[in-house]
């Protein structure tokens, strides 16, 4: 289980996260939505300490720290309990697909190489890229790279996988295969915290949808509730804009 309490992050004068409280149960799939620049990505990056939060408490499994007191060991521990999927894939450019997935197991978990590579091949099978084991990222399509990125996160066996707009950099033709893999993980009850603009994914897959605006959680609830009967005017306003564009963009040109 993951519990975030009163998390604050500032960039200079700007408060990007203004006291976030969030609980994630094991096996829960949470989708975070909201306008750009409201701190959705920053929230994910703070959970992984890619950004150092300025205040708050973070509990992941048996790690429980005041973020301002977190030692180097706490930070490494938090990172090992959370896996990250990046918007731009961020695969290790000097490593093959297999090596990308095995890297953490070898370096961080100290597995023997052959065991790590065997696990990597199992994961490659699950993400449907067994034939690309020896391919370098540069030779893979965007969709394939992001699937390897998800495979790398799966290998970490973290308590939660954090998805930071995983389909936003993709050409439209590759979006479905990445969302499909995420749906597969969701059906296996992999705990997930997903920042995305894919409203259909949020509606179909999420257990809970969190709407953020201005560095705060404005409203949260099951997708049926949040999409069909949003309580806050900001949520209504955002959903009206987003759903209008997504409907019109998914209508085939005549």
């Amino acid at each position, binding site marked *: 289980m993951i519990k975030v309490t009163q998390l604050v992050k500032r960039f200079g004068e700007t408060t990007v996260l203004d006291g976030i409280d969030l609980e994630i149960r094991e096996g829960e799939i949470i989708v975070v939505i909201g306008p750009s620049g409201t701190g959705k990505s920053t929230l994910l990056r703070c959970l*992984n*300490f*890619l950004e150092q939060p300025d205040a708050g408490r973070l509990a992941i499994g048996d790690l429980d720290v005041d973020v301002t007191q977190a030692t180097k060991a706490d930070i*490494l521990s938090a*990172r*090992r309990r*959370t*896996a*990250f999927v*990046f918007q*731009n894939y*961020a*695969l*290790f*450019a*000097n*490593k*093959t697909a297999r090596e990308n997935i095995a*890297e*953490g197991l070898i*370096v*961080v978990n100290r597995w023997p190489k052959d065991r790590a590579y065997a696990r990597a091949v199992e994961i490659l099978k699950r993400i449907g890229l067994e034939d690309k084991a020896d391919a*370098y*990222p*540069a*030779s893979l399509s965007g969709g394939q790279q992001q699937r390897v990125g998800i495979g*790398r996160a799966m290998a*970490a066996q973290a308590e939660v996988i954090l998805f930071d707009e995983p389909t936003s950099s993709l050409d439209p033709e590759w979006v479905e295969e990445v969302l499909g893999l995420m749906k597969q993980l969701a059906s296996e009850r992999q705990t997930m915290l997903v920042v995305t603009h894919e409203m259909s994914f949020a509606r179909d897959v999420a257990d809970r949808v969190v709407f953020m605006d201005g560095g705060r959680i404005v409203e949260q609830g099951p997708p049926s509730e949040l999409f069909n009967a949003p309580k806050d005017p900001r949520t209504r306003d955002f959903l009206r804009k987003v759903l209008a564009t997504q409907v019109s963009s998914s209508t085939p040109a005549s």
Partner: protein
Amino acid sequence: MDILNLDYMLALVPILLRYLPLTLGMAAAGMVLALALACGLAVVRVLKIPGLNAVTLLFISFFRGTPLLVQLFLFYYGLPQIMAFLTSINGITATIMGLTLHFSAYMAESIRAAIVGVDRSQTEAALSIGMTNAQLMRRIVLPQATRIAVPTLMNYFIDMIKATSLAFTLGVTELMGATQKEAAGSFLYFEAFVTVAVIYWAIVEALAWLQRRLESRLNEAYRR
């Protein structure tokens, strides 16, 4: 009469090649030492270590800002005058020292640029899976920085091989010094210097071939 005394040139080649090990040895020693020093300087610059960073900037500024020949004369003829222990320094040592300091200043900047040039996302991805700074440097950043730095570092090595000819001005009989002596004996200056030019050229071409092979190996991961 021939324009060129070809027989003389052909006879000169094996004589001059006896000095090739000294020329290449000075360049190799200079390159190894300069690389080590440059890596240290680059790390100071990347991490902006207080105090050391300012010293490094001054070092780079001086050794890039003055001619190599001036530096060599300074080490060989100048410094012994104020530092007694340097009076026993020989020309070969002074040359290696000069090449090391001079080229490390250039190489530090290209190594620094290569490290900084590795995309930030690579560091973040390594951090996100729980790697320490040392692990991500060794396994992710430095291998990628090497690929970026190799072409310029090889250029400096080529430059350094040619710069060993300045050792001749410190009384070292290397490839250039030997040529000068041979020419002074035969009065066939044109033939002698054409011969030595061709020898340098051949060395550099061989290295350029090696460089292309090395680069193509390092680029393997980046082919689409």
